[in-house]
């Protein structure tokens, strides 16, 4: 008997305009101990399918199915009490964003114990002890302390571990993981995936992994269901899907995944001219207020510590690092959208670091930015043609008619239809909005473009299109681009040079080929190692570095080993280990 049996599942939602069909006839089955991946982009119905299986959809949903069974119980017919008793014990769920999946006003321990008590009728004390054991199992070392923590006191990765521990607490037959790593950094993602895989094998439970990321699928599951538009497009063993995708949608998904593997042709070294953008010793210090018992004390928090960065003309430099590494702060300071504490910003040979608002205005034309969240970056009350033409208004370029005409021209240039000009941002998809943001940034024909994670909120196939568009426009317009991202596969396909940031410092900088072939700094290695595989046959066990390990593994050199002018210093410094390849290392005599 199957553990999960879904036949002919249809889900639709009642909305103002009528019914919206989210799932249109899906068949899925899962045996005990099996691991199944459901892959598809947002709106494909993958999450709705699983929520329907748990009967967790809102009242506005109407569900019909020929068969919808979870461990032998008919989900459509079971009463509420029965449903509550199988949730958590037959099937447990973990969610995309652990920060919002915990109740903020109760401690982790309370929330874990209450789950255990609900299903197993243990006393609070026994349940707490068990919760502690579970936290240890998910490799949380200070489990006893964590029990007393509130959710906001833990990092995303730790919270997701606690979520997993809570899900495991009643020994579920199947674990449903809904995009469990999308909100996490790459290195954390790899750790969480390995943890889930290991626990699944150890406890012999089944796994449903819902994701938009084929890399995650390749890492974790045996069998894959590909969904699109509420239907199953293709189903099969993970190797077969990767080797021999039958459906065109699967093929395009795989193509966008593998785009990162093909290398760009390295252009020949260019003549020495003033770089498009140069950052000299840029630093940002925030004052953090700590409320003490009597007096508030202020501590300095260095988000960015003395970053040097050169963006040559016509090149794309990738700035990578995990969240909190200071990469976005650096990007925003480079655009003078955030005031640096110290350091200089040189755009096209002119030092713009001290210019006032008025004096800076002409230079703003040559420095533009694209943000991660295209929705909040576009004024919802303006039409697309107004949005795209606004930079021209600000710099008083051309007549009103010319501006609109130019804006419409740009709409076409970024691959949208001219008659989109009268639409509003909310009428567009995420990818279309990002195209509008690109048009708005490029209409002034800037020299420097800072793209701050422009694709991280997009689906895989859309992501590939946007990257393609940026690449084309960069070549056409001779743009110099600072591309900020945590997505290494994108960085690999797009950039000429990669700068790796870690805790506010640049720890390695090299031509893209060199950094992927020969990473020198331990953090870079950890970052590269964490990239999900693109072929399920290449799965491997990974070891993860703690901060202490990274400090310990920082390269050591003696002066004689290094070319150039390296000098012995006690603190780590950036040294050249090959032409154009800098790494942070400790240099001794």
């Amino acid at each position, binding site marked *: 008997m199957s553990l999960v049996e879904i036949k002919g599942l249809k889900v639709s939602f009642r909305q103002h305009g009528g019914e919206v069909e989210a799932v249109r006839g899906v068949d899925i089955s899962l045996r005990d101990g099996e691991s199944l991946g459901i892959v598809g982009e947002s709106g494909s119905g993958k999450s709705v399918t699983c929520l329907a299986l*748990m009967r967790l959809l809102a009242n506005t949903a109407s569900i019909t199915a020929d068969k919808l069974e979870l461990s032998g119980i008919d989900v459509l017919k079971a009463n509420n009490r029965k449903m*509550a*008793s199988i949730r958590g014990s037959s099937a447990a769920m973990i969610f995309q964003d652990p920060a919002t*999946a915990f*109740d903020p006003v109760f401690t982790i321990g309370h929330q874990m114990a209450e789950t255990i008590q609900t299903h197993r009728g243990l006393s609070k004390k026994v349940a707490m002890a068990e919760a502690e054991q579970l936290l240890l199992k998910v490799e949380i070392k200070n489990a006893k302390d964590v029990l007393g923590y*509130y959710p906001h006191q833990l990092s995303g990765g730790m919270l997701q571990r606690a979520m997993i521990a809570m899900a495991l607490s009643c020994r579920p037959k199947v674990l449903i993981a809904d995009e469990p790593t999308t909100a996490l950094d790459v290195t954390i993602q790899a750790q969480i995936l390995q943890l889930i895989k290991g626990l699944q094998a150890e406890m012999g439970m089944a796994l449903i992994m819902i994701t938009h990321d084929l890399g995650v699928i390749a890492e974790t599951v045996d069998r894959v269901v590909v969904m699109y538009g509420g239907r199953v497009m293709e189903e099969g063993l993970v190797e077969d899907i990767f080797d021999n995708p039958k459906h065109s949608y699967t093929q395009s998904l795989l193509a966008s995944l593998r785009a990162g593997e093909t290398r760009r042709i390295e252009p020949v070294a260019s003549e020495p001219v003033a770089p498009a953008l140069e950052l000299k010793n840029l630093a940002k210090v925030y004052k953090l207020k700590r409320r*003490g018992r009597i007096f508030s004390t202020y501590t300095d928090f260095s988000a960015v510590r003395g970053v040097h960065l050169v963006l040559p003309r016509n090149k794309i430099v990738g700035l990578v690092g995990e969240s909190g590494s200071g990469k976005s702060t650096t990007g925003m300071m480079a655009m003078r959208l955030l005031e640096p504490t110290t350091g200089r910003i040189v755009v096209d040979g002119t030092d713009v670091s001290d210019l006032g608002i008025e004096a800076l205005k002409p230079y703003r034309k040559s420095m533009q930015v694209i943000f991660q969240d295209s929705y909040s970056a576009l004024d919802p009350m303006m039409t697309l043609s107004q949005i795209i033409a606004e930079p021209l208004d600000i710099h008083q370029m051309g007549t009103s008619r010319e501006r609109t005409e130019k804006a419409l021209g740009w709409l076409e240039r970024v691959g949208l239809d001219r008659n989109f000009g009268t639409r509003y941002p909310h009428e567009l998809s995420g990818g279309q909005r990002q195209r509008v943001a690109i048009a708005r940034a490029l209409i002034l024909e800037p020299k420097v473009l800072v793209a701050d994670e422009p694709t991280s909120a997009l689906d895989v196939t859309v992501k590939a299109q946007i990257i393609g568009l940026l690449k084309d426009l960069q070549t056409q317009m001779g743009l110099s681009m600072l591309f900020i991202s945590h997505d290494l596969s994108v960085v690999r396909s797009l950039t000429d040079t990669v700068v790796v940031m870690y805790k506010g410092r640049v720890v390695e900088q090299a031509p893209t080929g060199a950094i992927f072939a020969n990473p020198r700094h331990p953090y870079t290695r950890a970052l590269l190692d964490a990239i999900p595989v693109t072929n399920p046959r290449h799965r491997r066990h990974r070891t993860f570095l703690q901060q202490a390990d990274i400090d310990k593994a920082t390269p050591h050199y003696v002066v004689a080993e290094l070319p150039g002018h390296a000098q012995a210093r006690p603190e780590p410094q950036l040294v050249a280990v090959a032409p154009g390849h800098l790494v942070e290392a400790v240099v001794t005599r």
Partner: protein
Amino acid sequence: MIVYLIKRLLSIALTFFIVSLVVFLMMHAVPGGPFDGNDMPVSAEVRAKLMARLGLDQPLWVQYVSYMSGVLQGNWGVPYQSPGETVISLLRQAWIPSLILGGSGVIIGAILGILIGMAAALKRNSWIDYLASALSVLGLTIPVFVISMMLILIFAVWLGWLPASGWGKPERWILPIAAYAAIPLATYARYTRSAMLDTLNRPFVTALRAKGLSERRIIFQHVLRNSAIPMVTVFLPMFIGTATGSIFVEAMFRIPGLGSYFVSSIENRDYPLEMALVLMVTIGICFAYLISDIAYAWLNPRIRLGDDT
């Protein structure tokens, strides 16, 4: 925390002095004096003597300084209306009916309001929800004296179930309590409904359901606790606010509480009583907000543990 408290207390002290000054000046700016009334006419000579004895012939700033220095020593003066008592002893008696009726009104109103708001949020867009919205709009828009009159009309005049006014037997308390309860009930129904809906839409509620918790536990423990945080903070200020509500309610129901003194002290230019009433309400409101803010911080672990992260 201590710094915060000191800052808040200093700002309360400042508020106290500003209010006292403004009210003092306004009070004296109103034409007429305490002995100009027609029901007990006094001769000009007697009036001048009385004024001199009460210090009312002094320049205004001298009067203010001497009054405030008295207040700071705990001497709130003697009411002109009944010279045999002090302001404090007068208010101590008057306080009791207001406290009993206002207090139970707010508590009952808040409890009913929370229940109605919860029902409205859980049965969204049902008749309960619409009824709750209608109730809260009515409660917030109809003036309290109109509500009082309607209550008297329906329950005392038409139905004859309850006495229309007076003080003493508990059945006389029911209608004024109901009148006092109207505003808290309406406010709480609205607050609770929107806070609950807000919480119910948060992802952690789905996560709690996915853990297999009973709906009752989810609503009463998790959702209510999360929604309670903003609700706790409006309670005390509303409680103190009944002091001014008492002006109308007690007049309608003829209750010998604080409310009548608000009116009579102004009518009779009874300066010490008027000042005392205004300043006590001021202090009450200030401390109510202070305590609410502390309660808010304590209930919300994000703020309470702010120095740990």
